[in-house]
């Protein structure tokens, strides 16, 4: 009978694989060390009005999304309609970070695909990459009224995680003082 330990052990292992697979846990949501920390400060030129600067401090008192994108990024094109729909509902302001991109390309891209952003910060050299622990484009941060990062989505925002995670969190943060 001892031999049956092997297949039984394998089935237990398969059970683990099943849980990991179906729990809906996305391996890409690696806990970011930035969650719960104040969003790193910066002051950078806006995309459409380079003379004007933007700083996260400008958003104090509001819950907002900080969405990292670029005109060369394929997944950004996929998530774009969702962001447009979100912006039309006026639930939460979205600030864009145009990452490692040429301003002209980015403006053309927004003019063609529609602009869901309250405003855009231009970061052609990717200077914020390290401060914000960016692993790829797109990424989206949820930042609360005190300027603290509360959530980070690595990769595309999908309708599911928008509905199940981001919007409930935004609603909850709106209630917080």
């Amino acid at each position, binding site marked *: 009978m001892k*031999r049956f330990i092997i*297949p039984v052990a394998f*089935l237990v292992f398969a059970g683990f694989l*099943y849980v*990991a*697979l179906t*729990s*809906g846990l996305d*391996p890409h949501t690696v*806990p970011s060390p930035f969650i719960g920390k104040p969003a790193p400060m910066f002051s950078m030129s806006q995309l459409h009005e380079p003379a004007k600067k933007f700083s996260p401090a400008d958003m104090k008192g509001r819950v907002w999304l900080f969405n990292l994108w670029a005109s060369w990024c394929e997944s950004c094109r996929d998530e774009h309609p969702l962001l447009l729909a979100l912006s039309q509902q006026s639930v939460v302001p979205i600030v864009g970070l145009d990452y490692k991109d040429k301003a002209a390309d980015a403006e053309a891209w927004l003019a063609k695909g529609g602009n869901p952003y309250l405003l855009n910060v231009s970061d052609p050299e990717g200077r914020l990459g390290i401060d914000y622990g960016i692993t790829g484009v797109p990424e989206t941060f949820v930042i609360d009224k005190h300027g603290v990062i509360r959530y980070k989505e690595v990769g595309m925002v999908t309708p599911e995680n928008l509905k199940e995670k981001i919007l409930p969190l935004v609603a909850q943060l709106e209630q917080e003082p």
Partner: protein
Amino acid sequence: MIPELGHFSLIVALMLALLQGVLPIWGAARGNAVLMGLARPVAAGQFVFVAIAFCALAYAFLTSDFSVLYVAQNSNSHLPAHYRFAALWGGHEGSILLWTFLLTIWTIAVGQFSKHLPQEMVARVIGVMGLISVGFLLFMLFASNPFERLLPAPGDGRDLNPLLQDPGMVIHPPMLYMGYVGFSVAFAFAVSALLGGHLDATWARWSRPWTTVAWVFLTLGIALGSGWAYYEMGWGGWWFWDPVENASFMPWLAGTALIHSLAVTEKRAAFKSWTVLLAIGAFSLSLLGTFLVRSGVLTSVHAFTTDPRRGLFILVFLVVVIGASLFLYAWRAPRIGLGGKFEVVSRESFLLANNVLLSAAAATVFLGTLYPLFVQALTGGQSKLSVGEPYFEAVFLPLMVPMVVLMGLGPIARWKQVSLLDLLKRVRWAAVVSFVLAAVLPFLLGKWTPLIALGLFLAFWTMSTVLVDLRKRMLRDGGVKGQSPSYYGMQLAHFGIAVFIIGVTLVKGYETERDVRMAPGETTVAGGYTFRFDGVRDIEGPNYRGVQGRVIASKDDKTVAQLYPEKRVYNASGMPMTEASIDTGLFRDLYVSLGEPIPDSNGAWAVRVYHKPFVDWIWAGCVLMALGGILALSDRRYRIHAKRKLAGGPASDDVVRKKQPARAVADRRSKTA
């Protein structure tokens, strides 16, 4: 039309695979020769239809038919033709088709080269392979159809992942898959033996060449993947303990153990039940690797599209195939028996130690790769962690050190029993010479650390014990001809391990890395070479734009190499890529890659410069291992057996004997090998 033809062919292939999986096995159980005889023709039919599907997809790629979703996702009209073809296995659906295609090729080969085997055995083996094929065809047809249409068709495709647009990547996946799929033959033999209840030395002899071929492919496939990572990633590393790499390494470790335990089973009829378990294990780990890579349960640097539904399908498939074979094993293995006895100090015990250590190594890689997943499942996703290089290096080294030491002794030891004193006496010079060389050489190379000395000792020990054994056998049996090719193959593969260890030790111990900001005309020094940066110029490729830098490497004021590292941006995906430039030499590589341009400067760039001594020995070692495998395969032992059975009549038997005194050779071999 052509894509629909491909889709239809897959459906027909599925029907044939079902027949192939059911009828011959049933026939073998009932002793029905007609049903058993169906195995080969049905398998051939399945191969033809899968081949049609494969060609249909290749055609869609070569003609840039973007109305096929998979083509639109993985190709582009500006992609050069050879990459358009290789793009076939650049994504998930095509990889699975390639898997299945290779499986049918292996099945045909088994049918072809097993004419001398008993009919029940062949019927069962081909039947089991048919069942595996059923799983893959079902998967393709229901969860990942490569022929799915995308209507209206887009104007152009999204392009093949730029990381994969590289000659190494064109052959790496087919090689790797040949290895993975090849283990299905050993698996099918093991399951057939369990079904039939006959498990003896002949079973091991039949499985051995197949296992070796699969192992050779897997070895080359892993080496190619590692080489590709080295020059394509631009970090100068050659192994990252990434889950996808580990997924290919686990079957390799199990397969290596299997090759050795098959040897014992063939020669001494020992380890029988363990060998069967290893054969099941090696293929199970290949399937598990596919699951891990394709289901997305683990994160990896390899950017694969992942889909939980597919993961679930593969998981069910895994449970059916591995679960069923393990239950079969548990049920039938007690009949197999343990086989021949041996003493504590004997070649068997050395091979047993080899098996224990290799299996333990596979288990540690398994644990390290899947630990994040276990933790996640147990905590409901509350805690996430990843296991990295420090773990693997800390657990892997202690297992490999005794393994390599014993590897030197194993071939010298006799079967059954050997006197320990005698054995030690025979290797005393090898031990002393290796020890002294390993202790002194690092001083001459400029830096002494215990790890460098240990690595060098293991390499010299392996080389010298190979030479000691070769010399002894040559003196005893008179020249080179006295030994079988399989003996030389083994020693060549062991020698390859030594070459590999030298590469790893020296590159880890003595490499120099410079990550510097360089303006045109500036220089930096690494490993005794001076590197001068001459700035960059714009370049344009067929489907990318970019810049190319020029770096002149010189030593003692003499120019040694001109290096042209590139930074590309691919048009369709917009993905930036770093193309390192490498000057390869027998004793060192000079490796330069471009980082980012420095803003507001005079054309300055962040440049990474590496001096990597002996790095190519890592892959040279792998190639030697693979060559050793090929040499072992050329052993006449496997073929003579085939000819004698095939010839049947006494007349032709005589002819065979006249050409080659088969029995005499076989006798001598059992004495020496």
